[in-house]
């Protein structure tokens, strides 16, 4: 399948740093320093830091010494599944069903941002808490796996080896030792030493062994620190250095858990075992192989899904039956799954362009519909996408990502320009927005009956301390898409509806022209979402923001803009050069920061 969108034009950076309109200056006066270059920011304790768009790599900078990362809930479950499949290939589904009670008790990670945004771009990998319930449920799950893999002689013969059930008791010790070496390498993701064999087989006692003996050995392995955590010692010979390159097995785990969310496969273990993974060619070959494996798609879907999820989108069917919503929706009746379909469409668009060699810009301004259901496709006026080339939306107002239904729909009868603006400002541009002023609530306004939502929101938030952020930073980004209704459908006018009766009481003209101030020094107007999209793509911000979000997902922590600048710069450079998304996403694994571990705390 070939990508049919036009080639990505070279990205332009407009030199408007010296141009500042009186309007923009006035708007910024109350909100200076929030966005833009650091040079623009006045000094003062209340001024939030500017959004960085360049990452200056200092090769001598040492990343912070990091806590021992644990497997995420997803990674833990996937690894259990794959270990069971390794031990009992033909019965893995049955075994997983048998331990469903224990796996149901496992603790789901809480999507977090570690002090970052409270609402958007939260990643479950950033939940690195270790709580009692993690230890307890993991212990019981390990016991259950051990029991399930050994609960009849046939399973023991398959999992441990025929030698464990044959008539010769004399080979039982060797049989168990071999199992610990073979299974243990997968579980612990490192070479198994003689000391390890002695340690992990201890619960079994001496031969002959019962099923419970084998079960205990398996459970002990599945409780090991090397199983539950990413234990990284780094290569020997660097003990006096603040940073050490990772060992081959450690590197294999980083690759597989980042791209696959699970343990290395046979080929990756083999590359680690042989040391091939430590050679530049060998490493690059594995990165290519891993990235092109279908399992990578699921991990990238998680990244895009968590980064781009519009968490403020309410269920779209719950207001069916309320007068205003019924009038707004007309004959279109949203189903309970529509919200998830909208979210999934965004993810599908991202993975499509990743797989097809598209760039970040291709993804961001795509005019294709990835709606797989007739319900969502009807919002765009296209046929559902089944396979092959996605249908074009054939509507010039559809500007790409920011006009996908997931960011236009609200679940109510009304659009929400403020929430649309906050999402773009926070999740796409990574601009901080100060919290609402305390007096933001309880604003009474008077407006004519035919006021549009834009006029209403302007009146409600445009004055006082609210206005200092809403007017320049938030509202314009939402107003630009007001030519779409609260289900994401194109509209020419806003139909005004009596909330109590659902009666149409008039129409309001739409105005999508804004001064979006994507960069604070950019005074240009944008006529609509199409022009806004272009202004966003001409700014360095979305690329820097993407870089930071991907760093968080990759490393399970917030970035340090100085000490992690080399990794950030590598990914950002790739974006700046117009590389395909797949290249960009691979870049992180090729960066030195991915292949090393810091032990130093300055």
């Amino acid at each position, binding site marked *: 399948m070939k990508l049919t969108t036009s080639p990505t034009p070279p990205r332009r950076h407009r030199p408007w740093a010296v141009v500042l309109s009186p309007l923009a200056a006035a708007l910024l006066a109350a909100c200076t320093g929030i966005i833009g270059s650091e040079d623009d920011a006045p000094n003062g304790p209340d001024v939030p830091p500017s959004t960085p768009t360049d990452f200056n790599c200092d090769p001598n900078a040492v990343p912070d010494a990091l806590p021992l990362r644990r497997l995420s809930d997803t990674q833990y479950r996937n690894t259990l599944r794959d270990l069971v499949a390794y031990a009992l290939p033909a019965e893995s589904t049955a075994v997983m069903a048998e331990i469903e009670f224990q796996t149901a008790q496992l603790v789901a990670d*809480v999507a977090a941002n570690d002090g970052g945004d409270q609402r958007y771009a939260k990643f479950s990998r950033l939940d690195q808490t270790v709580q009692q319930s993690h*230890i307890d449920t993991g212990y019981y799950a390990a016991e259950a796996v051990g029991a399930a893999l050994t609960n009849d002689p046939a399973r023991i013969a398959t999992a441990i080896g025929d030698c464990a059930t044959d008539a010769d008791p004399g080979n039982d010790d060797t049989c168990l030792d071999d199992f610990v070496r073979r299974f243990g390498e997968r579980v612990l993701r490192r070479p198994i030493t003689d000391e390890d064999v002695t340690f992990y087989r201890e*619960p079994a006692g001496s031969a002959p062994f019962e099923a419970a003996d084998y079960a205990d050995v398996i459970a002990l392995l599945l409780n090991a620190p090397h199983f539950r955590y990413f234990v990284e010692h780094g290569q020997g010979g660097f003990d006096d250095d603040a940073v050490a390159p990772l060992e081959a097995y450690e590197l294999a785990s980083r690759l597989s858990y980042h791209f696959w969310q699970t343990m290395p496969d046979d080929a990756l273990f083999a590359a680690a075992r042989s040391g091939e993974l430590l050679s530049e060619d060998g490493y690059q070959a594995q990165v290519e192989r891993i990235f092109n494996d279908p399992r990578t798609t699921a991990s990238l879907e998680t990244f895009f899904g968590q980064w781009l999820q519009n968490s403020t989108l309410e269920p779209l*069917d719950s207001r069916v039956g*309320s007068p205003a919503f019924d009038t707004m929706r007309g004959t279109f009746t949203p189903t309970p799954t529509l919200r998830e379909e909208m979210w999934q469409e965004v993810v599908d668009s991202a993975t499509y362009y990743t797989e097809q060699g598209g760039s970040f810009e291709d993804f961001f301004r795509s005019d294709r519909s990835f709606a797989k259901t007739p319900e969502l496709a009807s919002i765009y006026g296209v046929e559902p996408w089944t396979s092959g080339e996605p249908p074009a939306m054939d509507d010039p107002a559809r500007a790409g990502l920011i006009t996908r239904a997931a960011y236009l729909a609200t679940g109510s009868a009304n659009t929400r320009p403020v929430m649309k603006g906050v999402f773009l400002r926070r999740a796409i541009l990574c601009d901080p927005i100060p919290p609402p002023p305390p007096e933001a609530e309880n604003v*009474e306004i008077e407006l004519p009956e035919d006021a549009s939502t834009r006029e209403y929101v302007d009146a409600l938030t445009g004055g006082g301390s609210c206005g200092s952020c809403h007017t320049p930073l938030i509202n314009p980004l939402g107003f630009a898409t007001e030519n779409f209704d609260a289900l994401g459908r194109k509209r020419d006018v806003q139909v005004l509806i009596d909330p*109590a009766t659902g009666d149409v009481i008039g129409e309001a003209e739409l105005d999508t022209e804004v001064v979006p101030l994507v960069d604070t020094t950019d005074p240009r107007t944008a006529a609509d979402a199409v022009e806004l999209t272009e202004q966003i793509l001409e700014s360095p911000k979305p690329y820097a923001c993407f870089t930071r979000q991907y760093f968080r997902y990759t490393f399970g922590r917030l970035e340090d803009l100085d000490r992690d600048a080399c990794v950030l710069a590598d990914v950002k450079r790739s974006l700046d050069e117009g590389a395909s998304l797949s290249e960009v996403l691979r870049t992180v694994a090729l960066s030195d920061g991915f292949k090393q571990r810091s032990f130093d705390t300055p």
Partner: protein
Amino acid sequence: MKNAKLNRRLFLRGAAGFTLALPVLPSLLEDEAEAAPTGVRRFVAFGTPHGGVWPQNMYPTDPQGPETMTYGGHQIRRSDLPMVANNGRNIISPVLSAASDVLTEQIRSKLNLVRGLDVTFYLAHHRGGHLGNYAENDGNGMDGQALTQHRPTIDQIMAWSDNFYPNLSTILERSLVIGRPGMSANWSNPGSQSGVVQNITPESNSLVLFNRIFVPDDDPMETRPPIVDRVIDDYHRLRQGNRRLSAEYRRRLDDHLDRLDELQRKLNVAVSCGDIPVPTVSSNEVQNQANPAFHLNASAQAQYWSLLNDVIVAAFICDTSRIASVLAGTYHSDYDGDWHQEIAHQSELPTWPFPNTPLPDNGGPSPQAYTVQHHQRFFEDVFLDLVGKLDAVPDGDGTLLDRTLVQWTQECGSRTHDPIELPIVTAGSGDEYFRTGQYVDYRNLNSPAHNANGDNAVDSHTGLVYNQWLGTVCTAMGLDKNEYESGQYGGYGELILSSEGWYAGQGKYPSAVLDVMGEELPYLKS
């Protein structure tokens, strides 16, 4: 450990379809007759978001026979908690009202309603403030952003206190953390009170929770020793090995080892919950299968919380846990919209603030009316559901409720975003510590905070400090002050005085108020 018994009333409420989980419990009725040990205290904390209930909707009007005294430099008041009957309902206030067979005179006599406790600084959009971790907020205002140091919440201090749990031989879960994240936090290494303070991930699936506190009868064939000691050895092997580890690695391994010690303790717990069958319906199923949609389905919401309450009651009966903290995220009202923006942020206004505007989909009388509806339903369907169930379980000379302190706090006071006059509703005497059946008012009526005017229907006053309540609860639950107090003043929780000039509480907490923070709050002790 023997189980407390259930009485017939509890069974009948379950049989009437009030909850699907209750049929689980009556099995205790037949074969267990001995009450839980006297002197065992239990603690349940409910927290709800937003608040913003006007005083006239939260508190009784004109209580009879108030007693007064001077305390903290100003006059404070108490009276018996008044209640009137009207059309089959008993009413303390519009929010504190319920069907007369739910809010009975006996239950009323075991409630307290506390008014006039404040956080001394601007604290909005928080989850941790209910139990003393004020830093768990969204960073609103200079005050909110100044708080960056998270601290354990009092439920967790209790959970790891030898004074609260002098004997852990039956305890499987030191605390149950239910609902939304953020209300409960503790050290990553609670045994040594070290590491980092982290939120405890809550669980809202009643079946999962049940399995944490329920112990099936021992399998007589199961005599194999657990391997946990060997797991501990494995972590020591890594911790003490000769491979390179950063200090952060070692800290994390120490945290894990502390948790393994706790697991080892739990594996040796000897307890029997009798023949309680495992519930067949979970709160998650009720939520997911609700029709109409859960957020507009009062019946399903009540059932959801009833199932979770049943787990708490079961844990108390089995004595496998004595603490539960619950941060609710459900809105118990008919309003179908953006509660946060359209109700909570507008709750002070006397009328719907957006005439002829398209925001509210379904109109409605006023944001405050929905606020009252939500809080009243929570009181009746959630709070009183648990209280009634606890009071139906005999325990010694009284009931489980008598050995328990159940508290319900709201994120804000009578104005959203504003921690002045934080309402506290309690039930139970906490094992005879609390004098109950009272309406206690700590406000300083000479210290106005907000004045009602055209845009604001709320009059409020500053009073005593909420930290003092938290300290009083810790004391009531048997903790020594050296287990929870820190800093210049007493009570629990960080104390900063607002630096925000607009804040209604700025400069209104004199030394006379601060100096008594380490004392047990007056009127409350029995």
